[in-house]
């Protein structure tokens, strides 16, 4: 390592870095984080590529690798993409369905980007810095970014967009837990300041595409919620909308002034499909080039087939089997632990997900998160212990229903748990509902929180999408005050640790908290998280340079056709 490198790093620490940046550097030099985790942390705190490279050299690590070279593609051509039809709105502040956010994410873009490897990367924001306690984050915007209408993106657009997302009536509340309308302001043409309600060490992740209600719109649309779609979905993305027929098709053409360089493709033609069966058939028949997402079963025909490219991406998306801790047979933690112990997780991943999943350990801490402590022992099947726990709890004749809805792997997953449970003498029924019944109040019109099946049945099986950090899982599913806390779990110690984790900017503190929380969750087991799913999709082999993304956005800026 040369003297010049050491001097530049010391200079950076002394003159530019704040306490949080210095903390990250200490973590690297002290050997507390590996190269991968350092990269995640460094990008999150907005360290530049040059500084990161110098720090890696200083720590004796290999330098930043350049991205894999892109395959040569012909300029031009139109890619045909299949997306499942969506019922809900395309307005960014109302986005909630995979198909809708995949489509809107082509013309629309975000301040930051959570990469498939879990790093947060600059996107419309070029850099960002927190204050000493991570309550104020200052974002520098990329200059020269043009909307599809030719106007330059400035801080006014970002502020107006963010204010819509935290203030619009009926907003999906993706960002409102973190700041309110007065908490975002411009500090110059290209600088935006977020004043948060509390410390959040991972805030840059929360304005990336994983909080999909955060698209940057022109201020004129953002000031009037509900006008973005009618106004032509004007964003900054690599393709601009030319035509959209609801539930049927859409056409987008190259945004020639795209900040990321001229996209190779001339256009994108989207067909919206009613259900996955016709989408799979269309890909097989060559009527589309790329499918948004497939289940592992649907993806099978495209595996090891030279006519197609099969994609599989590990993600934090997972399933939660929630057991009511406040009433019924699962009040006793031993009974909940017994159910968790009957599952042969590696076998289940093969049977239900055909291997397209990673085993979970009954907590939301996916191994891809930098903050996840990896020392917690993995729970494995133990039928003897399960029977003993049931005996001790006086629940040898445990009978209950697992309630879920007809979504992707849910019914297979429920049947798998049922079969394992039977091995320990547990009789589990399966109640499969339609989505509208599962997520509605019962009866319709009754108080939602206290009647909806997914939050109130004895045991439920619910899906959760991928996120770059586990914050939202913790605050809404596990903390006592969480509005998605389907197990009605209340543990003051856990709540305290979660709050500590959320405020912590240091990785060591985050890991210490997740380790303790994982231990508590293994003991209390309010939720069984037996696997984290891999994102699966496929394309025709002529599609080049496509990289899928865990929350179903379709990034086509570098994609071309062979």
């Amino acid at each position, binding site marked *: 390592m040369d003297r010049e490198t050491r001097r530049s790093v010391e200079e950076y620490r002394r003159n530019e870095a704040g306490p949080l940046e210095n903390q990250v550097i200490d973590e690297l030099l002290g050997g507390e984080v590996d190269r991968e985790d350092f990269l995640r942390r460094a990008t999150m705190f907005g360290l530049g590529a040059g500084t990161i490279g110098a720090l890696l050299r200083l720590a004796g690590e290999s330098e930043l690798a350049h991205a894999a070279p892109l395959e040569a593609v012909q300029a031009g051509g139109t890619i045909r993409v299949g997306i499942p039809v969506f*019922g809900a*709105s395309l307005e960014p502040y*109302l986005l*909630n369905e995979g198909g809708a956010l995949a489509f809107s994410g082509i013309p629309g873009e975000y301040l930051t980007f959570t990469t498939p490897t879990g790093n947060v990367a600059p996107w419309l924001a070029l850099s960002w810095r927190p204050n000493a306690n991570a309550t104020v984050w200052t974002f520098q915007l990329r200059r020269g970014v043009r909307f599809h209408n030719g106007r330059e993106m400035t801080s006014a657009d970002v502020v107006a967009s963010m204010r819509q997302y935290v203030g619009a009536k*009926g907003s*999906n509340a993706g960002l409102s837990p973190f700041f309110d309308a007065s908490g975002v302001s411009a500090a110059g043409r290209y600088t935006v300041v977020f004043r948060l309600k509390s410390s959040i060490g991972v805030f840059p992740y929360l304005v990336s595409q994983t909080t999909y209600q955060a698209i940057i719109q022109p201020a004129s649309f953002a000031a009037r919620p509900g006008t973005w779609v009618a106004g032509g979905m004007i964003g900054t993305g690599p393709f601009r909308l030319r035509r959209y027929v609801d539930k049927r098709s859409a056409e987008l053409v190259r945004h020639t002034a795209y900040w990321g360089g001229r996209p190779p493709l001339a256009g994108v033609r989207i067909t919206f499909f009613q259900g996955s069966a016709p989408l799979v*058939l269309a890909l097989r028949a060559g009527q589309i080039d790329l499918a948004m997402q497939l289940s592992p079963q649907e993806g099978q025909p495209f595996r090891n087939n030279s006519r197609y490219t099969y994609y599989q991406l590990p993600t934090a998306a997972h399933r939660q089997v929630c057991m009511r801790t406040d009433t019924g047979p699962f009040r006793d933690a031993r009974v909940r632990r017994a159910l968790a112990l009957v599952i042969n997780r590696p076998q289940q991943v093969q049977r239900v997900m055909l291997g397209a999943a990673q085993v979970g350990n009954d907590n939301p801490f996916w191994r891809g998160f930098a903050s996840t402590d990896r020392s917690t022992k993995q729970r494995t099947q133990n039928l003897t212990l399960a029977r003993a726990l049931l005996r001790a709890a006086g629940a040898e004749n445990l009978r209950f229903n697992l309630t879920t809805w007809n979504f992707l792997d849910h019914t297979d997953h429920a049947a798998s748990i049922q079969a394992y449970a039977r091995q320990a003498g547990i009789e589990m029924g399966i109640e499969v509902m339609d989505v509208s019944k599962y997520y*509605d109040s019962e009866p*319709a019109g009754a108080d939602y929180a206290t009647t909806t099946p*997914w939050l109130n049945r004895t045991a439920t099986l619910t899906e959760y999408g991928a996120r770059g950090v586990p914050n939202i899982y913790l605050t809404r599913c596990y903390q006592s005050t969480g509005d998605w806390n389907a197990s009605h779990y209340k543990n003051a110690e856990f709540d305290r640790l979660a709050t500590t984790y959320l405020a912590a900017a240091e990785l060591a503190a985050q890991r210490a908290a997740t380790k303790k929380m994982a231990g508590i969750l293994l003991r209390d087991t309010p939720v069984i998280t037996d696997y984290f799913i891999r994102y699966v999709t496929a394309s025709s082999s002529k599609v080049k340079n496509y990289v899928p993304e865990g929350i179903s956005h379709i990034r086509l800026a570098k994609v071309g056709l062979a």
Partner: protein
Amino acid sequence: MTRFLIKRIGLALVTLVLLSLIVFGISTILPGNVGRAVLGPFATQESVDALNEQLGTNRPVVTQYVDWASGLLQGDLGTSLTKQVPTWDLLAPALENSFKLAFVAFLICVPFSILGGIVAGLRYGRFTDKTITITGISLAAMPEFVTGIVLILVFAIWLGWLPVTAQAEEGASALTQLEYLLLPALTLTLVLFGYIARITRAGVIEALESDYTRTAYLKGLPSSVVVRKHVLRNALPPTIAVVAVQVGYLVGGLVAVEVLFNYQGIGLLVYEAARQKDLPLLTAGVLVVGIVYLVFTLVADILYAALNPRIRLGATE
């Protein structure tokens, strides 16, 4: 005839009012609420309540019905709650699509099925009759989803002759649209063939065994004349009534086929409206399908009378 028409139109209006009342009534016991459908399962209850308030879906269903009905009397079919556009803007293209598919299906299905039924009836008890009857029953017993997948696998994926979806691109020529509609139309033909052919066959057999046919033969008329003038004339009216009733199904009841072939017809639109509890769209859609059904039933009755001189519309009622 005029009296008959007035009476039928009056009955149709009553039917449509009842239909709209039933749809609104049933909606009260359907699961789901609009705010939740729009915002998704993970939206906060405050957001859902705010949206329901904004859309007016938290009002009593009777109030919503009265609002909708008074709008209808002024020629306004209402506004879709989930899409916030006039329901007719959604219904019109879907109805056009449904008519296109129904038309192509009819062009293939009706002559093919009637011909099959006539041949089976004329060859009653022989190998041809048994083959047509058993094939028809087997195809009718098969769910249209399965028939459709088999056709897709053979003609779209293995042979690559036809597109797998039914929706041609915007502005496609009539010939291209026909190409796209062939597979779903064939699926419907296979589904309906057995039913229509059996009705025709039964009519032909009955006519063949009747006194007037025997008399015609005894008079020395050639077989072709007997079949054309006596057998078919008497055998076809029931078939026409059955075919007319199928129009309602072909226009509004093809959810499975529309899903499989990714086709935006009115059946799918109404189904989605029901799923999302979009009452104005659901009711308007059901009414439109109801009107189509009533109109075609009326046309069938008139045709029935025209083909069967023994029936005089309105004369005996």
